[in-house]
């Protein structure tokens, strides 16, 4: 995993912004924020509500902010 991901999981996510998530840079972060997913915990909520199904989550991420397979994989 990337250093960004290691930094993220090293402490409680609390109120971290969505851009703190590995794979989510400025462009994707802005698109997610514009759709209400401004905090990492809201994106976690979406992952849980998709029953932790990675394929569904990647598809949702692609549809929602245009993440490519590497970004959504991260």
């Amino acid at each position, binding site marked *: 995993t990337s250093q960004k991901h290691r930094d993220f999981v090293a402490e409680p996510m609390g109120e971290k912004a969505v851009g703190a998530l590995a794979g989510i840079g400025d462009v994707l972060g802005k698109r997610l924020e514009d759709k209400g997913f401004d905090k990492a915990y809201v994106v976690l909520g*979406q992952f849980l*509500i*998709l029953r932790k*199904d990675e*394929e*569904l989550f990647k*598809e*949702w991420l692609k*549809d929602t902010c245009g993440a490519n397979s590497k970004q959504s994989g991260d």
Partner: protein
Amino acid sequence: MEDLKNLSDHELLDLLKKYDIPHGPIVETTRQLYEKKLQNYLT
């Protein structure tokens, strides 16, 4: 896609189950994804 939009959440859920498409509950943030998956499946 239009007629899928007119389905109730319950009807959409029934179709996802009928076609054995992996899914979770239908809420505001998941409905569009499931409509798209059903549309892909049906076409």
